[in-house]
């Protein structure tokens, strides 16, 4: 009997070793098959031709097929953000490939918004031969993966991880979204300039880097600008279903503005519960609030009068935004949110940086990284999440947030 056990154990060890082998042998030949086919676009036919033209030194434009990897939560609680990013990026990849010029091959990996899984996903992409990382979507994984990409020298452009820790001390990590402090300061400034003299309550999620980060800088800036904060309510992931205590607290403190530096899911519950208790202050949100109008089943009347600072609005009238929104709606049957837009811009920014740096697809990820890091601060980019975006060498983006107010279910510039 013991022999049988031993044999069994040895077989299992063998299986383990084999699975290690399998993992590496697979990585060699999965170029086109790994991701679901709608997620990957390969344009092999152009590669050979482009490579020959690229052989000459100092070619101004980039050429070849680049492998762009992306990591984000495709399942789990944060899946909505990851899926939006992958969808937005996919549209940009298709557009760029259709134009000719450089070609992009895109693969997305799931990280369930967890640092450990994210590093695993990153390693998987490295095995695939990724040259540039567009990710990761959420902050905590992005810090962990950023440390790895910094060590391995892989250029990283995150569409949506907004904490300053993401870029801190890593010259190869850049952001498309605002940093959290940036938003906190902008919100406090806006309130002190435009709706001054009112008492402010803040309800924020303090187990979330994004929310906490904006809150901290908002409070500091508010103190400076003499904006009176009368109530601070917090919630966590596990208590994000019931806000009656916080709303009652804000109401009895006499707050006339409720600042919500949170994502739109909990915000929608807050709006509903506030309406239920007949509490109608001005709700003021940040970019995470974008998307509230398109929530399935959400009564948009509840969001009437909500103000928010956002870099992207799906109702903007410029051609680029309308083109993107139309394509997105056609393909994914929903209105894109800020994350999708950030990712769409991120892919275009990578493409532009590759072009500007004159990278070729046969360069290693490390070589591409050095070139891109040096050109990023020289780029000015007009995207759907802001015009005239520029980058500092630290990786921080500078672009102007736009204040909007919701009227009749659409974003309107206040005062118009």
């Amino acid at each position, binding site marked *: 009997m013991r022999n049988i056990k031993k044999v069994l*154990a040895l077989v299992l060890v063998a299986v383990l070793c084999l699975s*290690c082998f399998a993992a*590496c042998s697979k990585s060699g030949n999965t170029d086109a098959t790994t991701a679901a086919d709608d997620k990957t676009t390969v344009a092999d036919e152009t590669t050979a031709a482009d490579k020959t033209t690229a052989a000459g030194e100092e070619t101004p434009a980039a050429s070849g097929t680049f492998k762009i990897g992306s990591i984000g939560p495709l399942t789990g609680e944060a899946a909505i953000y990851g899926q939006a990013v992958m969808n937005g990026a996919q549209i940009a990849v298709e557009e760029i490939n259709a134009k000719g010029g450089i070609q992009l091959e895109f693969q997305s990996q799931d990280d369930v918004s967890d640092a450990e899984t994210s590093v695993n996903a990153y390693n998987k992409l490295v095995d695939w031969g990724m040259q540039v990382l567009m990710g990761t979507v959420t902050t*905590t994984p992005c810090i962990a993966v950023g440390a*790895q990409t910094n060590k391995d020298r892989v250029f990283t452009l995150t569409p949506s991880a907004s904490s300053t820790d993401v870029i*801190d001390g890593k010259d190869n990590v850049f952001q498309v979204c605002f940093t959290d402090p940036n938003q906190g300061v902008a919100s406090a400034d806006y309130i002190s300039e435009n709706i001054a003299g009112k008492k402010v309550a803040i309800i924020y999620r*303090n187990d979330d880097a994004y929310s906490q980060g904006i809150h901290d800088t908002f*409070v500091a800036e508010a103190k400076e600008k003499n904006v009176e904060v009368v109530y601070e309510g917090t919630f*966590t992931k596990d208590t994000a279903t019931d806000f009656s205590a916080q709303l009652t607290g804000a109401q009895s403190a006499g707050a006339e503005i409720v600042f919500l530096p949170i994502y739109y899911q909990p915000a929608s519950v807050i709006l509903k519960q506030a309406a239920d208790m007949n509490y109608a202050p001005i709700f003021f949100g940040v970019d995470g609030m974008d998307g509230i109008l398109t929530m399935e089943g959400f009564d948009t009347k509840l969001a009437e009068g909500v103000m928010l600072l956002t870099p992207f609005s799906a109702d903007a009238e410029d051609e680029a935004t309308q083109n993107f929104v139309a394509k997105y709606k056609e393909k994914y049957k929903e209105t894109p949110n800020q994350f999708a837009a950030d990712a769409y811009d991120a892919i275009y920014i990578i493409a532009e940086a590759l072009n500007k740096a004159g990278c070729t697809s046969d360069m290693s990820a490390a070589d591409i990284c050095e070139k891109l890091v040096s050109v990023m601060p020289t780029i000015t980019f007009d995207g759907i999440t802001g015009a005239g975006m520029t980058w500092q060498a630290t990786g921080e983006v500078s672009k102007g947030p736009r204040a909007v107010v919701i009227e009749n279910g659409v974003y309107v510039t206040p005062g118009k």
Partner: protein
Amino acid sequence: MKKLSSIKGTTKKNGFTYALVIVAFAVVSLLNANGVLSRSAQGLLVPACCYIVMALSLNLTVGVLGDLSLGHAGFMSVGAFSGIVASMSLADAIPNTVVRMALAIVVGALFAAVAGFLIGIPVLRLRGDYLAIVTLAFGEIIKDIITCLIVGHDKNGIHILFNVKGNKSVADLNLAEGGQVIIKGAQGATGTQTIATFTAGFVLIIITLFIILNLVNSRTGRAVLAVRDNRIAAESVGINVTKYKMIVFVISSALAGAAGALYGMNYSSLVASKFDFNTSILVLVFVVLGGLGNMTGSIIAATILYVLPEALREFSDYRMLIYAIVLILVMVATNDPKIKALFGKILPHRKKKGGAVNE
């Protein structure tokens, strides 16, 4: 039973467990040195070691002690964060990463042992499902408490803030110039130096095995097994139930803390919510599928089940669904009386191990 019948058999069996780990380590290291291992396989090595140690330590509580714990990740969390604080604050004092890592693991184990002792006092008075729910509760409490912690260090030492109302921030730490924030409350530990290595993981597994296997075969271990199999009988022959239960519970917590410290030093960022109920359950699944009280089983189950979701990456959206189905099928297949009878014919004398939990 078998243990009494031949001491030699036990030694042989333990030798086999050690040999299995050492051979696996040698093979993987060899492959790694020759560059055969892919990046994804390499990335899985350290966390796999951590989960193996977690599974072994939980097996001590669930399999040997016979108490169902649903909050084991809490001890991992205590170990991880205290280990990170130790490692980061000693970064200047001890530049040698190996020494610092070893020290951090010891610190993690000590803190987790203290937590285990404090939690053990109320928990071990309860039994069965009530004990299970209380460990779950403690796991959640640890998670919440760590979420409230803000820790930094500067030349004056370590500064700790307990952010109950959620209105304090890093600035309230009043760090001197050149100070560094280690844990930022809900945002967790960021910017941790990643100094964990596979060799460290291997050494930790061997030490864990050494402690557990020796404990089980010692006088204490026999007393604990007696308590598990029949508490009342054990009490009546003069065994101090609480004392032995506490010894095992504290050792189990300390080992989980060591695993946590190693885990914490493998990632540049770590949040307390990582160590929630789901992580406890994940480790429990390793233990149950590996066999209660069966240490070799825990090692194998932890490795396979940790690699499985990664191997299923190709199925992207469906991978967790497949994982769930595999889990249900395995449980049904190994416990259905009909299928069991079938196995019984193929593998004669399959003895039931453990199984004393919540009888």
